[in-house]
């Protein structure tokens, strides 16, 4: 019995090694166009409005009503797309290692931290919506999600602007 468990665990570890290796090779070998093609369109203008309302507070901070806030970020679909794009944005930042290793690693790490905030906010929104509880909190998390995503896009664009000006216009177009 013991040896059977060992063999099963060995097979699991072997599969783990193969998957990890395959993913690592894919991560290293993926070309820029493939990464960019994964970016899903999001309503950027609305998202920017929400993010700036949060990041650069002006006189009236209650200007955007919760319903409008929800529409500006594209609703559930918009939030889902932001989540999907988050990992691609990190990979796009990490891709700059081909031109500037140090800066790409540092900026990718900052973007990764924003992504953690984004994913936490999205998780909380899902939980509140799923159990129909404390819906009053949802707009706060939407604000947080939108600003984290906005910061991620700003960071990656600034990174490309200084290190890869050839690809920069295409990235603006996609993001």
């Amino acid at each position, binding site marked *: *019995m*013991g*040896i059977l*468990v*060992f*063999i099963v*665990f*060995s097979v699991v*570890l*072997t599969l*783990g*090694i193969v998957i*990890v*290796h395959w*993913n*690592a*090779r894919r*991560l*290293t070998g993926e070309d820029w166009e493939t990464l960019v093609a994964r970016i899903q369109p999001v309503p950027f203008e609305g998202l920017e409005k929400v993010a700036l309302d949060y990041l650069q507070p002006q006189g009236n901070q209650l200007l955007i009503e919760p319903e409008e806030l929800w529409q500006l970020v594209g609703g559930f679909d918009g939030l889902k797309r932001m989540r999907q794009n988050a*990992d691609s944005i*990190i*990979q796009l930042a*990490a891709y700059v*290692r*081909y*031109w*500037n*290793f*140090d800066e790409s*690693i*540092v900026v*990718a*790490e900052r973007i*990764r*931290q924003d992504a*953690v905030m984004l994913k936490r906010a999205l998780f909380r929104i899902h939980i509140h919506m799923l159990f129909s509880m404390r819906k009053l909190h949802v707009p706060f998390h939407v604000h947080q999600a939108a600003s984290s995503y906005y910061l991620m896009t700003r960071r990656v664009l600034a990174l490309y*602007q*200084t*290190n890869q*000006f050839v690809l920069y216009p295409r990235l603006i177009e996609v993001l």
Partner: protein
Amino acid sequence: MELSLSARVLWTAGFCELVVLVLVLIARGRWRSFPVFSAYISFQVVETIVLYGIHRFGNAQAYFWFFWIGAIVDLALQISVVFELTGIVLKPTGTWVRDARKMFLLLALTGTVVAAAISYGVNPTVPSSLDNWIEKGNLFAAMLNAQLFVAMGLASTRLGLAWRHHVMGIATGWAAWAVVGLFVEAAYSYFGTNWHGAVLDNVRIVVYQIATIYWTINLWLPEPETRTLSPEMQSYLTGLQQHVKLGPQGVSSMQRR
């Protein structure tokens, strides 16, 4: 104890390959990037010389002790190599990437506990109680090596951390050797050491030798060039950026005047 011709050939070939790898690590300066890996390979060279010397001129008891002390140091260095690769991949700037340490430690600790429980539960087909514990130790070592590698790989790929060329090379050889080690230990444990023991040993040795040759070639070749913008181009772009930013402001201030 007289060695067979195949054992001598494998021993000599393995030793020569390790020496070449050590020379490559020194000549190409790779030991600076991979000090633990270099120490591990160098240790194997020294271990081979010492064990061969004792085998030729010493006695069986001395060989026994040196062999097992060497095996313990070998295992400690193997684990250290995986930790070295982990450090390079998960700490690219010298500090841990956010969430990387937590994820790696969680996976590594869980895997270690599972590996310890499985090795304790296995009853290997061996003649004595000491052999039983030795085989359990071997099973644990094989699982530990493989699962630490998986923990490092899962943590890095989930966080989108790419492996550089040389890390990828070392990891590829290491992964192949770890997988073969697992199944050789399973066969040893299930069938006993008398069941094609020499063949199983040779399979593991040959795979390790292939890995050594692969590492030698990989570490000899340079890391692909990173394309860094020259300082002049950096300053030109920053200036251009400022100019573009200031341009519309200048126009609007002129319009106000």
